């Protein structure tokens, strides 16, 4: 009797989410599979076309260009971003005075709204009057045309990403502070140097968080949208910053090819699932979960 009352209360309290998850997540997820097999413009009811969207996608040059750009960007930006975040966290964790001040400075950029961030970096990296190239000139380096050269547009975007690593830096820092000092002291007594301590104690201890940041990083990077959308209109120069989510958005809301866009969405989801699965499998041997 008491138990069933609690059960009823449980469903009632959870009701908003049970409705919300069904209406705003599971239903759209399911219907986007259906749409992906349809010719659908939103204005008219969807018409079943089978595998047509997928077939067309695989022959669509722009699709491959956008997918390639996204993959290339992820391969460049993810490791550098993760290394920067972890490096900063380790520096902050070195128990020197003023840590909170440094922490605030490194963290603040990640609060900057994406559109403002894009506008700010447009100005910093401006080809003619940008301060970054001006500073490089002082160092005797001729700065590249960050925004206009297809070879430099992705690195430009990466810079904005590195500037905003504060969030994952804080996650690393929190986990570093949880590494028991007794373990590090024991390693020290055994004659381990700083590198050995990091390599053999710290990194294994925080490996679950590294994995977490990796998976979140994959999910986030593959969806990159707002910053390039504002910084590089239409994926300029030469479509070098035309990313997957931008092409998906254009298909859905500019060309009204909703079915085509849904197929792209599902391919993205499957890629994310596969990469996550691979990360989890590869990390099986390397990730150390303390306690239970």
């Amino acid at each position, binding site marked *: 009797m008491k138990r069933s009352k609690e*059960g009823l*209360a*449980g*469903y009632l*309290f*959870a009701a*908003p*989410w*049970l409705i*919300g*998850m069904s209406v*705003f*997540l599971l*239903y*759209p*997820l399911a219907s*986007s599979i259906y749409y992906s097999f349809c010719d659908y413009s*939103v204005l008219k009811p969807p018409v079943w076309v089978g595998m047509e969207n997928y077939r067309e996608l695989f022959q669509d040059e722009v699709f491959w260009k956008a997918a390639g750009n996204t993959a290339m960007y992820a391969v460049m930006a993810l490791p550098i971003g993760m290394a920067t975040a972890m490096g900063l966290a380790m*520096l902050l964790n*070195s128990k*020197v005075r003023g840590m909170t001040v*440094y*922490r*605030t*400075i*490194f963290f603040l*950029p990640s609060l*900057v*709204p*994406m*559109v*403002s961030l894009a*506008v*700010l970096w*447009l*100005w910093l990296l*401006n080809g*003619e*009057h940008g*301060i970054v190239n*001006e500073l490089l000139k002082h160092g005797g380096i001729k700065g590249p045309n960050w925004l206009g050269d297809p070879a430099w547009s992705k690195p430009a975007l990466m810079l904005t990403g590195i500037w905003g690593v504060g*969030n994952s830096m804080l996650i*690393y820092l*929190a986990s570093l502070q949880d590494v028991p000092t007794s373990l590090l002291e024991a390693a020290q007594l055994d004659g381990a140097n700083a590198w050995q301590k990091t390599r053999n104690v710290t990194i294994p201890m925080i490996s*679950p968080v590294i994995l*977490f940041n990796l998976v979140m990083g994959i999910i986030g990077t593959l*969806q990159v949208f*707002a910053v390039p*959308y504002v910084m590089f*209109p239409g994926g300029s120069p030469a479509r070098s910053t035309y990313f997957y989510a931008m092409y*998906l*958005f254009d298909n*859905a*809301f500019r060309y009204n090819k*909703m079915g085509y*866009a849904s197929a792209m*969405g599902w391919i*993205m989801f499957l890629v994310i*699932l596969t990469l*996550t699965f691979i990360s989890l499998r590869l990390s099986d041997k390397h990730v150390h979960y303390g306690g239970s």
Partner: protein
Amino acid sequence: MSALAKDIDLESSPEPAFQSHAKQNRVRVALIHLTLILLSIVFAFPFLWLVTTALKPIDQTMAVPPVWIPREFQWENFGKAITYNADKLGYIPFLLYARNTLVLCIMTVAGSVASNALVAYSFARLRWKGRDFLFAVTLATMMVPFPVLMVPTFALFRELDWIGTFRPLWVPAWFGSAFSIFLLRQFFRTIPFELSEAAKIDGASEWRIFRDVVLPLSKPALAVVALFSFIGTWNDFLGPLIYLLDQKTFTLSLGLQFYQSQHGGTPWNLLMAASTIVILPVIILFFFTQRLFIQGIAITGLK
């Protein structure tokens, strides 16, 4: 001399080996400070450039060599940025956008605190059939990328005739979000269950326990959810880009993008002033809630 005395002796007058160790340590600390200071300059520099550009007259923005600090601060740039081209057709009503953004933020903050608290309470402290399975599903939904949902959600809101209104941007917040549910659930589970048991013996209903026992003890966690939801809405770009059609309904982020694409390139001082206006509230909010913020993000990384 006893062993103990020897130890004490060692402590009071360290041997040379000890001294060099301490010296080595001081060098290490100095090097770390140096690195941190250099990196701080690099990370803070874009902010400095943002603010000084915003305070310069237009001819100084592009001066060579660069003007680091303008001789006279042009505070009126902020006023100009807000009312730029106010007399012309391309007028960007920034104050209206700020109001729109604030309204949306209030609606999403209220909705997400209310709904996520209820749902998290259920997942954390009530036993019901299917709970653990649904919680696992909830966590798994965090992996679903937004672009997959974009088309069907748009179709759904179109069916409801909500396109061009604020509703697609705030109504979903009243139905919970996986991340906030997870965050609050972790917190609710740390509140001793004995408190609930005691209240139950006194005849309190689940609602009363939720409202009078658990919620009052969870203010920091609720504040974190409110904070993240505020920032998420304030920063959102893709949502407003999809759902808002009429210029009068734009948010600050969308308005700034619009401003940039219309006037981009030339009035960098005004553009930076406008960006500063969009960034500043978030930064101020951060300084008032720093501790909560950092704790909140630290929780994110927990399994």
